[in-house]
């Protein structure tokens, strides 16, 4: 919090000082027709305004605090070669540009805008089209990425980078960006104290968002849909994920949300709809999964045996083909007061809680794990009989994986 306040104060001071700086105009037919030269000429804190038109420049190095602004989205075309901006200075602002056509390289990570070891930078209202990596930060802190539109056209993972890529960063704000067609939509590696909200990420080849070793982050109100394998959060702790939408992640290996080795995190009020697997958890500890809606997924939850002490409470499980699947024979997690559409119990004392526990794991889900082909028997009479037999006398399914207080009505 203190860091955030400092950050805003610094931006405030920066904007005051900018008023005293001079402004340099760049236009294709003007005296200054090169952005790189304009930057060389400029003093720290100057403002560079880029007039509409098309500019073919690569690897423009920004090594002093500058305020770069486009008028009516001037086009900065990389001509399928190197990236356009390489920022090495603190307090750089880049606004209102259209950056496009960066060529793929196997040697270095090319990006539309690339930042190294900076502070207090702002990237806002830009369009990045077909730029390999879109916005790339390494070893930076206290920056804002807002309202950008990053579009790629990749069909294979090796053809592209990530739309927004953060490596070893802290204290960022990433909001209201729209990203599509990259390897990962938003990629974090060793990123901390960062907020991600209101972004839309779709049609990524791999993950809509991908976290690795990134602790103490919060992401909310984002929309992730039609991604190759959903959203992956891995090897992190203290993550707060709320009010996000994970939808339509269909593919043979697709999850709405994949959690691997996540600890002490909260997952609340998310909408997880029409994914092959709604939420996949492996090696997770002490998660609070509350008030989420899982609907129309193939498998709503897949919780592996190495997950302990996780709480699944007050969630709605609506019209999923399978509710919970696990490879464990005993359950070490708590399921309480969820609403399950597959629940067939009754509520005699009318307290809104079913009188018999609900066991969301079916024998058939075990069978499918073991013999994938048996999916063709889904919803057949034989399988119904088999499930019924198992329900009456459980042999394989973990008895302890039960919701003892199943809600009778959907939780609002």
């Amino acid at each position, binding site marked *: 919090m203190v860091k955030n306040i400092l950050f805003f104060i610094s931006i405030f001071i920066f904007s005051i000082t900018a008023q005293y700086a001079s402004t340099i105009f760049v236009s294709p037919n003007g005296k200054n027709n090169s952005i790189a030269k304009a930057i060389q000429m400029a003093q720290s804190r100057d403002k560079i305004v880029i007039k509409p038109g098309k500019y073919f420049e690569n690897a423009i190095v920004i090594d002093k605090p500058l305020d770069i602004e486009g008028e009516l989205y001037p086009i900065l075309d990389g001509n399928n070669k190197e990236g356009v901006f390489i920022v090495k200075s603190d307090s750089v602002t880049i606004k209102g540009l259209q950056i496009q056509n960066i060529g793929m390289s196997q040697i270095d990570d090319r990006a539309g805008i690339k930042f190294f070891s900076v502070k207090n930078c702002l990237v806002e209202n830009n369009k990045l089209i077909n730029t390999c990596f879109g916005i790339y930060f390494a070893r930076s802190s206290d920056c804002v990425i807002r309202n950008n539109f990053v579009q790629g056209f990749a069909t294979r993972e090796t053809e592209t980078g990530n739309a927004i890529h953060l490596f070893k960063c802290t204290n960022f704000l990433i909001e209201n960006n729209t990203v599509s067609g990259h390897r990962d939509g938003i990629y974090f590696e060793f990123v901390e104290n960062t907020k991600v909200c209101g972004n839309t990420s779709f049609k990524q080849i791999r993950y809509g968002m991908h976290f690795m070793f990134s602790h103490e982050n919060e992401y909310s109100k984002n929309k992730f849909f039609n991604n190759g394998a959903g959203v992956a959060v891995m090897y992190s702790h203290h993550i707060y994920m709320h009010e996000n939408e994970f939808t339509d992640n269909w593919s043979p290996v697709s999850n709405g949300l994949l959690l691997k080795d996540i600890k002490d995190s909260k997952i609340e009020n998310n909408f997880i709809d029409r994914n092959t697997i709604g939420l996949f958890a492996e090696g997770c500890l002490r998660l609070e999964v509350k008030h989420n809606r899982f609907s129309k997924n193939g498998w709503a939850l897949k919780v592996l045996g190495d997950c302990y002490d996780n709480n699944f409470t007050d969630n709605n499980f609506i019209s999923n083909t399978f509710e919970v699947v696990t490879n464990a024979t005993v359950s070490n997690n708590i399921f309480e007061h969820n609403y399950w559409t597959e629940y067939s119990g009754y509520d005699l004392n009318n307290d809104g809680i079913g009188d018999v526990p609900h066991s969301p794991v079916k024998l058939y889900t075990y069978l499918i794990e073991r*013999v994938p082909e048996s*999916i063709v028997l889904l919803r*057949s*009479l*034989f399988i119904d009989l088999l499930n019924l037999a198992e329900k009456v006398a459980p042999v394989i399914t973990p008895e302890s994986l039960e919701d003892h207080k199943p809600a009778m009505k959907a939780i609002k």
Partner: protein
Amino acid sequence: MSLFVRGIKGEEINKTILNYSFNIKCMLKIFKYSFYDLLRSRWLLMYFLFFLATTFALLYLSSDISKGIVSLMNIIIAIIPVISIIFGVMYYYNSREFIDLLLSQPIKRKSVFLGQFLGLSLSLALSFVLGMIIPFAVYGIFTSSEIWNFSSLLFIGVILTLIFVSLAYLISILNDDKIKGFGIAILVWILFSVIYDGALLLFFVSFSDYPLQKFAIVLTVLNPVDLARVMVLLKLDVSALMGYTGAVFNQFFGTTWGMFISSFSLLLWIFIPLFSFLRIIKKKDF
């Protein structure tokens, strides 16, 4: 000379066409009366009320049309085959003596039996379709996005009716003994609905070390109940079937070619028993 020959040929052709249209007319007459007769029968009314009540109940309880469709599919797959085959056998044995009377009338055997077959299967299908459409219409299916899923459900239900009525006819024509006929009918139903799937599962489990997906597809296509179920499921449970296990099935059933083969196989299940039945009645003594 050639004119004369052509004249005769033309006449013959006319005669066969006349004969043919006469056959169809007769068949439609038999169809009409057996249809009327059946529509007024208590059993059919019960069948209709069953679907009406179940559909209303499911829609009321699930208060979500797509969920209602999934539950209804389970019921359709379980109920339609057994009712169609039992009712078909029952109807055949019950109308056995009336069939004799009809056969002694100046019409072809084929017309009598095809007319009755159509009368029976279409009245069953109608009861089913009306029993489903009315509740769904009340719950607003026609303005819902589920209309296609619902239609595919209706389609599958009607096809299953036709398949099991034609199986019922084949079973009863092969067995003059009622009790035996009923026994075989129930056996055939259990075979398609339960035993086949059990055997399939056993097969999958015992040979799980081998790649079986293509086998699984072939074996599914061979059983009309399984095939009907998978065809509806592909629309309803896309998420699960798109899983890594289901990808292969989706690649087959999801394509035009797969759909063509599936539909063709379902049609074969109607027409093979029906044609065998028609071949048998040509030679059969009543």
